[in-house]
């Protein structure tokens, strides 16, 4: 993986020192809260409902064992012994004390990590396919591209105060696991006549105005990437709305002015920029690429799998690796009844150990709030499974009902309008029988605690949005969303459900699907697309109406 240079090290250390001084001045009263707030946000420090929260960047979701172990240390030393992996492949600590945060940032810098640009109207942490560098369907590893963009966008003076935050996702596989069509810019690595390049998608996003991104350029030569991105950002910076924060994302600019207008502006800007910035020097590209070379694959005898528990785990929690004798293991942070995305410090240390022993010292955080061991030899699966099981990390539910994305919601977040976590926990408990989950099959439930949609509910097969209605929590359902290469925004089913009605309603929807499906192989999403919302609506609301009668 990418190694910090002396420049990176000095830059991050200097930022920590700068922030240490800012914290001291806030505590002494030399800075007001109004002055301090934008400074702390630039360093990932939020004030949430019950405490401060530190959001740490995990660039394109990639970690090594030492970094994961350091996160465990931070959780124990300065937090409450756990961390929360987010839908943007980051990690959040929910209980830091203000005076401790500079020390936490120093501890992060010890392992080449930081919290810069995890907040604010800037280019945020670049996300990528969590199976990058490992998946069999991959055309090319997207991480060198993501790292290049990270280096270019970090502290970029022109883009430090954009109209609104800006998110970039990259995938190197045709099967889109990075939700590229729901990002401000989505990059799909493609080849045309053998030549590598990018399909550039712009203007996707979730939030209060969900939109699927549009293709701005169907083939951008690889060497033009940074000048072209700079052109998009320059056009957005100049034309994006600053009068209304709810209309300030690039998706609104494109929606209001049209993708053709955007394209002509970007092309003109690109021509101007390209004359003075023709991309990145080759030695820089090569140095980045060298950080992502494949590991040296080992050879070992693979024993037949006899343990039924391991068999189930392999069925659900592994994915096809580009090396036939290897597999990708997804560690579920969705134990039955647990908080989606949370891991204790002990669990983090187990994952760090497993990465070092069995996955060429690599881990990935997925936007689905799980952790990946990307390179596990099949001969090592029994040992990996046993260690995960001992740590409470072997739940075989990836892609099933209880593999739920949930934002922190009103249990933590100051912006939330309702809780998400208890709803996820209740659904998980309701489907605690893994055989029942396997019978239901692939199903993505995603829960957001407010319209900002951090829980990606718009692209869920069953999306749940928590709102306030008449002084109580109310939950709206959307159906038919899709975060893949066939991206679609879910359709609202109807009126919201009370907190004690939403889980039974989800159960009725799933029961309706089981009745409706033509074969056990027809997924929930396929059945929904085939029959439409009517039978699901009837199932969800019939009982509510019967109870009200």
């Amino acid at each position, binding site marked *: 993986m990418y190694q910090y240079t002396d420049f990176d090290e000095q830059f991050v250390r200097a930022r920590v020192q700068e922030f240490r001084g800012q914290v001291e001045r806030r505590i002494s009263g030399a800075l007001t809260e109004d002055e301090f707030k934008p400074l702390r946000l630039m360093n990932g420090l939020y004030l949430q409902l019950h405490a401060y929260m530190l959001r740490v960047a995990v660039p394109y979701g990639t970690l090594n064992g030492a970094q994961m172990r350091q996160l465990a240390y931070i959780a124990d030393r300065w937090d409450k012994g756990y961390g929360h992996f987010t839908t943007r492949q980051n990690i959040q600590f929910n209980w830091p004390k203000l005076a401790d945060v500079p020390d936490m940032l120093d501890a992060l810098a010890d392992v080449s990590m930081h919290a810069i640009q995890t907040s604010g109207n800037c280019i945020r942490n670049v996300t990528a396919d969590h199976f990058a560098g490992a998946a069999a369907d991959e055309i090319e590893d997207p991480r060198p591209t993501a790292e290049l963009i990270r280096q270019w966008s970090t502290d970029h003076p022109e883009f430090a105060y954009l109209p609104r935050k800006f998110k970039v996702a990259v995938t190197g596989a045709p099967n889109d696991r990075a939700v590229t069509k729901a990002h401000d810019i989505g990059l799909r690595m493609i080849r045309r006549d053998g030549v590598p390049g990018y399909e550039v998608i712009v203007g996707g996003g979730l939030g209060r105005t969900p939109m699927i991104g549009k293709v701005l350029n169907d083939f951008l030569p690889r060497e033009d990437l940074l000048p072209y991105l700079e052109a998009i950002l320059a056009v957005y910076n100049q034309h994006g709305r600053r009068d209304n924060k709810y209309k300030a994302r690039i998706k609104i600019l494109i929606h209001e002015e049209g993708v053709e207008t955007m394209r002509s502006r970007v092309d003109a800007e690109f021509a101007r920029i390209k004359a003075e910035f023709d991309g990145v020097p080759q030695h820089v590209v090569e140095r980045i690429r060298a950080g992502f070379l494949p590991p040296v694959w080992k050879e070992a005898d693979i024993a037949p799998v006899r343990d039924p528990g391991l068999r189930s785990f392999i069925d659900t929690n592994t994915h096809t690796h580009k090396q036939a004798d290897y597999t990708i293991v997804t560690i579920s942070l969705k134990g039955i009844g647990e908080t989606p995305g*949370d891991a204790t410090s002990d669990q983090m240390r187990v994952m760090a150990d497993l990465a070092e022993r069995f996955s060429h010292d690599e881990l990935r955080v997925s936007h689905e709030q799980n952790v990946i061991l990307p390179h596990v030899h099949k001969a090592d699966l029994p040992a990996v499974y046993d260690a995960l099981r001992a740590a409470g990390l072997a739940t075989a539910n990836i892609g099933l009902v209880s593999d739920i994305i949930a934002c922190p919601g009103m249990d933590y977040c100051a912006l939330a309008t309702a809780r998400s976590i208890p709803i996820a926990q209740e659904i998980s408990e309701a489907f605690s029988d893994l055989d029942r989950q396997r019978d239901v099959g692939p199903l993505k439930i995603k829960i957001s605690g407010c319209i900002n949609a951090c829980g990606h509910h718009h692209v869920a097969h069953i999306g749940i949005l928590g709102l306030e209605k008449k002084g109580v929590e109310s939950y709206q359902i959307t159906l038919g969303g899709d975060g893949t290469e066939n991206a679609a925004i879910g359709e609202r089913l109807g009126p919201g459900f009370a907190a004690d009605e939403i889980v039974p309603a989800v159960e009725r929807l799933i029961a309706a699907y089981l009745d409706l499906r033509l074969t056990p192989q027809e997924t929930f999403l396929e059945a929904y697309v085939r029959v439409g919302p009517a039978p699901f609506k009837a199932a969800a609301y019939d009982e509510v109406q019967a109870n009200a009668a």
Partner: protein
Amino acid sequence: MPKSFTPQIVTANDLMLGDVIYLTEGGWSRRHGDALVARSASEAQEMLATAQAQALKIVGPYLADTVLDDAGRPAPVHFREAFRTRGPSNYDHGKQADLRSV
């Protein structure tokens, strides 16, 4: 007819710890029930001004509606404020755990 005033309290977060706190007669408390209650709009504004003057101790003070129980102690009206009195629902290690040991 003028709208009747709903009793209010002042709440904020502690600057150093981030904890939810409530303005009291003599300072700040972590218990909602200890909160000083404003019974008129002018009292509420005075209390908010008092809080805003304590920027070295607190962050983000605001007024929140409250109801008084039979003993005259304030209790939260909105569910968000109720959650703030006790911490997150998924773990017993928020405010609820800290207050239990008080």
